[in-house]
């Protein structure tokens, strides 16, 4: 349907609001009163909250108006339930991080203004990544996310670890985006167009050689694999996650990764696959050309999760352990990618939504502990279950959820992924993944063990309580609720994920006249 410019822009309210907040934060930071402790943080959090609200409203609007998707800017950007789902996830992450970072003393002393400005820009980048359907837009969106992330990783300027994280991130990141750009240039050259739909059409009509396109998509996969930290482009992850400020690490492992998956799904499924029947888009996808890439992705998934799980064993730093765990989880999420079916994509979305809460929660626990005077080594967590019962309980719940034990959300996410695999005949893959998740228990439980099985007080009076403050307590609770709730009753989330995949699937070439 052809819409007027203004009506079109109404679908961009979240992005616009985000940009306005960004401007306001910069203005306040530069021109605001000197004694404005915490004001910037509050402004940024409010703006993000409002953005989140607009995302939800737009989501509803898409549903109530039965408008599956709205194309903007000469078809280079699309607002559809799929993109809204990722905006929702990223919005929630940014909002939580903004709230949390407000109480991190070191960020405050280093300059709140910069932190929130960069955070908002990265969020905007993810919002754009969720919606782009054009190579140029894709590159711009990815860099909008990446460049501020490099700075955020090195936000503690005097800190060796943070600087090192930042350097490694920028060098690996720039190399990855360079390779990706080289691949993208060839995609453009082979098909003569920069739009995803156009490339797909070029392959379908036989004008572009599938083999060459696949090769070049392999180069693109380097860039995107870097973003989601899939093997063999995961090398930066542990160092960057360990060295960065924990709030940034939490952000990189959740929102940034979700954005990477959004663009990965959109790009590959737009270019290399087509829904079987237009009326039933949540169903099977037909590969365009050679479907060999699914096997490649399956192998990458297996290698990624295995490397992540095996390397996590011997870690002594909680952040580093969670970094390897997040590599492993990238592997699990990729599983949904290989089945070429709506159920697999739905499982990915579902898993990402649950993963975000549990992983964010785990990192928030780390922040809360170090803000309360603890450290980031596993040994610093000794007896924590007794010293800070609520925090210990939350951390244990998040870790068990990451392992995939019922009745927690992570279990349900894994079930959906495995179910998609089994349904489409990838039983061996699901067995490998299931064994992997069983093995991962070992290192998650090590943290739980340190928290509960060590430093057990002999008498009730022996406990030295660790006070984490109500601010962190409430935030942890906010992460805990979905982690448990979606493990017991997940029908609403499953519906949302299914709808988000189903309604937005067909990114096919549209008739010519539409945007002339």
């Amino acid at each position: 349907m052809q819409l007027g410019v203004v009506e079109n822009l109404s679908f961009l309210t979240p992005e616009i609001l985000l940009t306005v907040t960004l401007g306001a934060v910069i203005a306040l930071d530069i021109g605001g009163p000197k004694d404005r402790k915490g004001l910037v943080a509050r402004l940024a959090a409010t703006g993000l909250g409002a953005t989140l609200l607009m995302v939800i409203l737009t989501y509803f609007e898409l549903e109530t108006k039965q408008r599956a998707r709205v194309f903007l800017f000469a078809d280079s950007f699309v607002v559809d339930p799929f993109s809204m789902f990722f905006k929702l996830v990223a919005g929630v992450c940014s909002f939580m991080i903004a709230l949390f970072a407000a109480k991190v003393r070191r960020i405050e002393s280093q300059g709140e203004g910069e932190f929130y400005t960069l955070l908002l820009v990265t969020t905007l980048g993810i919002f754009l990544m969720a919606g782009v359907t054009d190579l140029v837009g894709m590159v711009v969106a990815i860099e909008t996310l990446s460049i501020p992330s490099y700075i955020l990783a090195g936000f503690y300027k005097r800190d060796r670890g943070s600087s090192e994280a930042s350097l490694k991130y920028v060098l690996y990141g720039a190399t990855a985006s360079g390779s990706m750009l080289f691949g993208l240039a060839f995609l453009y050259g082979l098909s003569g167009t920069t739009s995803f739909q156009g490339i797909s059409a070029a392959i379908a009509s036989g004008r572009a050689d599938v083999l060459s396109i696949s090769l070049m998509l392999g180069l693109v996969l380097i860039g995107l694999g870097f973003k989601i930290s899939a093997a063999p482009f995961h090398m930066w992850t542990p160092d960057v996650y360990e060295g960065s400020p924990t709030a940034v690490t939490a952000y990189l492992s959740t929102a940034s990764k979700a954005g990477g998956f959004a663009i990965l799904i959109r790009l590959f499924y737009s270019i290399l696959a087509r829904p079987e029947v237009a009326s039933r888009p949540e169903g099977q996808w037909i590969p365009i050309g050679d479907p060999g890439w699914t096997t490649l992705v399956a192998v990458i998934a297996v290698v990624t999760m295995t490397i992540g799980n095996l390397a996590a064993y011997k870690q002594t730093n909680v952040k580093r352990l969670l970094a390897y765990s997040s590599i492993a989880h990238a592997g699990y999420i990729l599983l949904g990618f290989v089945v070429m079916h709506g159920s697999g994509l739905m499982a990915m979305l579902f898993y990402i939504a649950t993963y975000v809460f549990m992983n964010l929660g785990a990192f928030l626990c780390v922040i809360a502990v170090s803000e309360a005077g603890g450290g980031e080594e596993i040994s610093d967590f000794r007896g924590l279950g007794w010293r800070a019962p609520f925090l210990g309980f939350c951390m244990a719940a998040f870790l068990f959820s990451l392992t995939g034990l019922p009745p927690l959300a992570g279990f349900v996410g894994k079930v959906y992924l495995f179910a998609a695999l089994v349904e489409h005949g990838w039983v061996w893959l699901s067995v490998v993944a299931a064994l992997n998740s069983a093995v991962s228990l070992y290192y998650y439980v090590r943290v739980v063990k340190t928290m509960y099985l060590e430093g057990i007080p002999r008498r009730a009076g022996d406990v030295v309580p660790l006070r984490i403050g109500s601010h962190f307590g409430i935030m942890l609770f906010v992460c805990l609720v979905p982690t448990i709730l979606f493990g017991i009753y997940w029908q609403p989330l499953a519906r949302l994920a299914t709808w988000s995949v189903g309604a937005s699937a067909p990114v096919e070439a549209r008739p010519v006249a539409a945007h002339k």
Partner: protein
Amino acid sequence: MNHLLSLMTFVPLLGALIILCLPKGKDEMVKCIAACAAGVPLFLGFFLWKGFARNTAAMQFVEKADWIPMFNIQYSMAVDGISVVMVLLTALISFICIFASWEIGKGVKGYFALFLLLETGMMGVFCAMDFFLFYVFWEVMLLPMYFLIGIWGGPRKEYAAIKFFMYTLVGSVLMLVVMLVFYFNVTDPVTNRHTFDLLVLRNQDARSGSLLLEGVRDLCFLALFVGFAIKVPVFPFHTWLPDAHVEAPTAISVILAGILLKMGTYGLFRIAFPLLPDMANKYATFIAVLGVINIVYGALCAMAQDDLKKMVAYSSVSHMGYCLLGMGAMTTAGFNGAMMQMFAHGLITSMLFLCVGVIYERVHHRWISRFGGLATIVPVYSGFVAFAFFASLGLPGLCGFIGEAMCFIGAWQNGTPSFHRLTMFATLGILLGAAFHLWALQRMFLGEKNKIYTEQYHHVTEINGREMFCLIPLAILVVLSGCYPQPVFDLMNKSMSELQAFIAHYPK
């Protein structure tokens, strides 16, 4: 609709939540609430016993509700002859264990909350008639168990707890994949949707989809078997058992041996056999052979132990072997025997572990060779131990004998020469069982006092009222069901013969 089973399952959970909300320092109140929360299922169990129809193999006390309609997961609870015995046993032993753990020193609140959560998990496993629900309960059990062993256990508790956790989880993820394979290959003829309903999965033509393929059914059966075998535990997956049983606190050892082990055999009865009857027939001999290995190997290991608790733990391995032998026989008598053995072992092994706990609490060690002449100092306690030992070694008139005898009869009735040989070989286990029990009895209780370790005798006091309160109900049941087992057989017989007929219907 009747909510009896849901109440039995979730009242303990409610109790756990109430306990968590209590303020600190109210230990006595915590214990009372825990006793009440565990008492309710036992009380309701009485109605279950009364109301259970003995003359049918059908599901009873059925509760059904949609849980996740999108995935067609149902909240479906019911009991039949296979599970009712286990449900009653769980209610009884959990209640007793609350009292057995009355003296827990540290973290009372956490202990009882986790214990009640564990009871919910166990009840749920035996009542769930939806595969997904079953799996959830199966896994939910692991978490409290890990903490109960890991926090309140013995010196090597951390190792034991993680070993138990890892073993079970590896087994159960395989089960998860098989569960999904079944889900996607079976369609409910009524609703025309995929289903997790165990009854539908059982009565389907499971030879559809990829389950038709050569080897897939074998793999599915073996994966399920491994998942359950780890829990039983079947040789060679048994190595977690001695560690977990020895390190766990007394009450938890009782739960482990008395109920958790039965989940393995229950799982075979409830899921592996009915869902893949042809494979059950195909691997019957294999299962029986493993059973015989368990019997003999467990008994030999038990004989070699100097740690009393470890000896009891290995005796469990041996006794669960009888169940496997009975199950492998694929005869009604064998199935009934296996079930009876599960019931009997639940009672007897609970007594054994409670007795071990009694002496350990007093002298803080369990080395058989350091004792001697206890019978003269603590005659009542010695009487209980002797009674439990005799029940365990299968003295006629006590229920252990009934279970073992029925298993042997069932195995013999199978009729093939290989089963005759297996049965004959398995009787060796009775001999060995008698040997290690009597030997331990003699070394600990009879003869002279130990001359080197004299200090300990100052601490040895007679069994107290609370401990007797735990042991006596079990002892009464052991005698009752040993002399007159008919009521127990009545409960299970219909379902067992129906299951046997169902499996026999599908040749290899």
